[in-house]
């Protein structure tokens, strides 16, 4: 187990100080020392990068605290039964959602900005590595806090969808009110996280709107005078049939909903992978372009070499022919 010898260290510092004073060695000692320290500290580049990084972190921390604080109220399902104090209306919830999203977007933009700036101005390899790693940490932190947010939002939306499903079997007036709240949410929804919930919300909506006119005509039909027993029976049969149809549609819709959720999840995974691959493909593309250029240059060089070779041969041939002619000439001249 580790032993903390910090106190021992401080004690040795004191011993060394007193010893140096006794020996009269100038240590930058006493009052000067502390002034020196102040001096030393202030001109030191305060690290623009790290102070901004810390700012971003404190922002994200504020967001996290805010979310955690209101989490209980946000998730609380029975808020309409509880007292005024702990309640949170839907409008407030939407407000929180919106604020959170804007905040997250600004934070990620700030991180991006920091990234481009920070890597521009520094020459040392180690500092670059360090800063990249720090930015990765911050991004990771932001992701975790966003997960908090999306979790509680998912819970809320799921609950709403469930409520709607249950309420579909209830009489008309309730469905009307539920329905009116859902378009609101649909319009306010712009974040990617709850996209998967959008689709299922739209479907039940459409079904309800379809069901409405039918109910409307149904209502009109009922307004007439007493019906004969055959008509009643007929109407009852039609009733049953319609209910059967509704149930089928409802089942299908639920299935489709489930599938769409899965597909969107897969989609997310795929986009992530594709984005990763994009970077690698860019790399490969550049390498290939470089390689083609190298090969072209290589070809050129080879062509030149061949030409030179050929030229060289021609000269040799010429020289030999000239030599032999001169020999013949000398021989003829001599004889």
């Amino acid at each position, binding site marked *: 187990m580790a*032993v903390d*010898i910090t106190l021992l*260290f401080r004690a040795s510092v004191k011993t060394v100080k007193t010893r140096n004073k006794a020996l009269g060695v100038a240590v*930058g000692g006493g009052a000067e020392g502390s002034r020196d320290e102040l001096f030393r500290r202030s001109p030191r580049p305060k690290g623009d990068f790290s102070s901004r990084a810390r700012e971003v972190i404190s922002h994200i921390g504020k967001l996290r605290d805010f979310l955690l604080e209101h989490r209980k109220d946000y998730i609380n399902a029975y808020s309409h039964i509880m007292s005024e104090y702990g309640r949170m209306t839907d409008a407030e919830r939407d407000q929180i959602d919106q604020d959170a999203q804007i905040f997250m977007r600004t934070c990620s933009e700030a991180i991006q900005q920091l990234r481009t700036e920070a890597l521009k101005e520094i020459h040392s390899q180690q500092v670059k590595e*360090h800063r990249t790693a720090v930015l990765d940490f911050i991004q990771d932190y932001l992701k975790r806090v966003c997960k908090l947010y999306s979790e509680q939002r998912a819970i809320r939306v799921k609950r709403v969808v469930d409520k709607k499903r249950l309420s579909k079997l209830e009489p008309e007036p309730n469905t009307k009110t539920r329905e009116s709240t859902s378009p609101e949410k649909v319009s306010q929804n712009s974040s990617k996280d709850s996209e998967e919930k959008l689709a299922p919300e739209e479907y039940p909506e459409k079904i309800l709107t379809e069901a409405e006119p039918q109910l409307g005509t149904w209502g009109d039909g009922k307004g007439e005078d007493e019906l004969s027993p055959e008509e009643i029976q007929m109407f009852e049969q039609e009733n049953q049939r319609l209910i059967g149809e509704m149930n089928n549609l409802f089942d299908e819709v639920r299935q489709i909903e489930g599938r769409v959720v899965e597909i969107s999840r897969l989609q997310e995974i*795929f986009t992530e992978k594709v984005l990763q691959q994009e970077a690698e493909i860019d790399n490969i593309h550049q390498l290939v372009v470089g390689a083609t250029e190298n090969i072209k240059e290589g070809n050129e060089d080879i062509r030149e070499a061949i030409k030179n070779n050929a030229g060289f041969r021609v000269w040799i041939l010429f020289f030999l022919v000239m030599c032999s002619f001169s020999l013949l000439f000398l021989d003829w001249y001599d004889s």
Partner: protein
Amino acid sequence: MVGGKMAVAVAAASIRERQTVALKRMLNFNVPHVKNSTGEPVWKVLVYDRFGQDIISPLLSVKELRDMGITLHLLLHSDRDPIPDVPAVYFVMPTEENIDRMCQDLRNQLYESYYLNFISAISRSKLEDIANAALAASAVTQVAKVFDQYLNFITLEDDMFVLCNQNKELISYRAINRPDITDTEMETVMDTIVDSLFCFFVTLGAVPIIRCSRGTAAEMVAVKLDKKLRENLRDARNSLFTGDTLGAGQFSFQRPLLVLVDRNIDLATPLHHTWTYQALVHDVLDFHLNRVNLEESTGVENSPAGARPKRKNKKSYDLTPVDKFWQKHKGSPFPEVAESVQQELEYYRAQEDEVKRLKSIMGLEGEDEGAISMLSDNTAKLTSAVSSLPELLEKKRLIDLHTNVATAVLEHIKARKLDVYFEYEEKIMSKTTLDKSLLDIISDPDAGTPEDKMRLFLIYYISTQQVPSEADLEQYKKALTDAGCNLNPLQYIKQWKAFAKMASAPASYGNTTTKPMGLLSRVMNTGSQFVMEGVKNLVLKQQNLPVTRILDNLMEMKSNPETDDYRYFDPKMLRGNDSSVPRNKNPFQEAIVFVVGGGNYIEYQNLVDYIKGKQGKHILYGCSELFNASQFIKQLSQLGQK
């Protein structure tokens, strides 16, 4: 690695976990590490020296360091640039050069705050040196914390540790057994060993009962260790063995047994050719600190004349505890390993095929009602397949790794006919009748390198009861020199044998038999990339090496002439003593075997096998250095030269 594991009521719990927890705590500024999923990121820089690097690298991967918030990890003696506003964690040995370099860092104001952690205890004077430098640089407030970590040992496996890797020449077998060693040098060597052992017990959190043989280096180590532990226990204020950090130790009512043995008890085992996977990798390939370096030749093709020769790729693999295949098959005989790799490969291929099949099913999209319902089922399957993809890729990587390693080992085995050596040596060591004469094997030109032959002969020489006659010896020597061996190790072994004869009878190796299995049936069964024809398939029977036997006697309190006169030390007893009468009559539950002068994987595997048969008992194996046979032969020849 969670704090809860510390409450396990076994004192000799995995030493690897303990050291990892200690390291993580250190990296977290010496505050116990708590996982918080929405915690703010804290970043720091880690600076270590070579000792620190050796300690950290088997335990924490770079990814784990990242998770702890470490952005950069640098060597102490490299060029480091100033990085403002970052706390730095130092993990170094308190040597002169390191201290100088640290003072230099303080003067250059490289980092914002400094957390100094010393691998073993730092002396007061060196602490004052740092204080001096800090004062001179007006950086005293920057030195935030100073700690003595007591982590001066390297853990390689859950239950195996080594003392050091960097300066192992200082405490090697050769250094201890040199004829020209002076007293002061011996003292330094012993001090180093004792310091590391002390750190080990501090980390383990238990005070052991020590037993050692008389008249060996092990005895010196035992005496010093006992003294050191005793001093520390007496010093109630600063005792390292009390307090709530020792929670786990208090639960077990038994103290562990430390058995200190000297390498000279058993010189044949390090030279032995082996047949288990981990030991083979260590023997045949370049393997240390859980990392194996392979040279892959990129195939022999006829290169056009004038082209540069193909370069061999160097690859290195880490064999970690996460690697389940490795954990399962570390100690299995090699043919079993080959088979298991095949099985894993087939299993992986089956899973891959399933994923591919899903891909083709997804081809029909919404064609008819039946397909739609199948589709929804398949989206679920696809999701699960996609999410299991990373696991599958990881498995593939491990299978590739082991295929490469096993193929490399197999090539060596075939080239050097190691199976023949193994069988023969087993027979020699168990004193059963030999079917081929030693001379035949030595003069066989294509069975193994000269080193292998030397090893075989040395084992023969060590384990025979009567020394072979001069004429025979001359014959052997001639055959060996013909085969190209260096005869220096033989000199040394002769001296050793003479000495050992005086001291006591040489240890016997117990009974063992090997059964060569049906060659044909094996080939039929595997039919794989591992072409095992020509390599005999040998099955190991359980045997006990001398070290294991000694441990068995001491742990079970059996009476045996070999171990009866071992010394007994108990640091917790009030009176200093030299009693050879053990006070404790019960068999021990935990034991730590430490070999002074070097150990190897064969002994480790043997101990593991031995303890597997016993329920509820744990053994830790440690040695001052880890060498394979070729390194040991080098040391012996250096000794023999003098």
